[in-house]
């Protein structure tokens, strides 16, 4: 898994990293609107939750400072003031303590307070979770060949075959997961 982060317009950042020249089985993209900390390259998502794991977040957490303090006591360290980095750290900590990704996501529903749609990328696939109130938008689309997540349908509109895809809104507080085998 490789992570590319930069500050700038999405089309320029995509060009700078030559996204069009890349190939792979899955990818996660994120354009950040900073709510809890400054606009910096380090503050951009995704944050890595562990080897071959990353997390992007739409929303803002409200108890991230308290959770960060607890995680620091557990031995984790943080590079930014970013709330999403705390969510990523929480997942890492839970999995270090033996939880699966699903269990870590499930635990986060009670441990993390605030608005969130999380998309977690792993080596084998990705997972989606919306908080129980789910005010932040989310839409998913699936065909025989691909599955995709977006905040708006417009993000999915260029995918091949999307007009015949199964499209749905993920339910709140429910973990969705796709893996390659």
């Amino acid at each position: 898994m490789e992570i590319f982060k930069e500050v700038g317009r999405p089309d320029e950042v995509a060009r700078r990293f030559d996204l069009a020249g890349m190939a792979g089985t899955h990818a996660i993209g994120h354009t950040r609107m900073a709510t809890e900390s400054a606009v910096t390259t380090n503050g951009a998502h995704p944050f890595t939750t562990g080897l071959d794991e990353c997390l992007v977040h739409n929303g803002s957490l409200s108890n991230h400072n308290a959770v960060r303090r607890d995680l620091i006591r557990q031995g984790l360290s943080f590079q930014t003031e970013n709330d999403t980095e705390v969510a990523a750290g929480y997942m890492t900590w839970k999995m270090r303590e033996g939880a699966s990704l699903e269990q870590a996501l499930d635990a986060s529903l009670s441990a993390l307070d605030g608005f969130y749609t999380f998309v977690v990328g792993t080596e084998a696939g990705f997972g989606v979770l919306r908080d129980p109130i789910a005010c932040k938008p989310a839409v998913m689309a699936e065909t025989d060949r691909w599955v995709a997540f977006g905040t708006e349908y417009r993000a999915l509109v260029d995918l091949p075959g999307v007009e015949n895809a199964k499209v749905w809104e993920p339910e709140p507080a429910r973990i969705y997961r796709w893996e390659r085998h």
Partner: protein
Amino acid sequence: MPTVDLATTPLRELNAALHRTKAGGDTSWQVLNPRGQHSVATGVDAPVTVEIDGSVGYYCAGMNKQASVVDQRECRAGRRREHDVGRGSRVAETHREPAGATGCGGLLVIDGNASARCGISMKGIDIVVKGSVGHISAFMAQAGNLVVLGDAGEALGDSIYEADLFVRRHRQAALARIASRSRWPDEHKAVLLKLLNAAGVGNEVDVNSVPPLRLGAQALPLPHR
């Protein structure tokens, strides 16, 4: 009938042309290839019908007076404010919350499912959903009617004011506890029948199968795990 292809025509030109239309001008418009764009056919103040072929984004038919907006396929529609009482909007299905939000009047018909927060803060609009609605629908609904022929998700009618909700099935055990279905006045049945007729299902749906939910004045508990 003007046909506007949004694959080649900027959306602003469509909306500007609709804004310039007065009564007596072109009354039927067709819009192609919206491809999820936001704000399609917003701010229309003329008795026209706009048929959209394809999926739209937020605010479709928002700030609408007098127009009818029909999306034959799917509408990922967002908020709309409909002041009109005579005309209305019809969409096939919407995955984008919140359909009919803050609507003041008119009729919104959704042939399939609506997603979360359908009818949030509705202020007089009538909404008929032939499928199901998602969570927190009719949140803070002040006035108007929401008819759901399928399921309603969690926290239906949280913090509701005086809007009336008619739901055929629901999953919430908590909702069943405070809803009373034993008797309902004929005038409610008449309202419901009128809405079902306007939505084109008056002959197919038994009015007695879609009872009103009488929700308590207190807010429902928000969903939690």
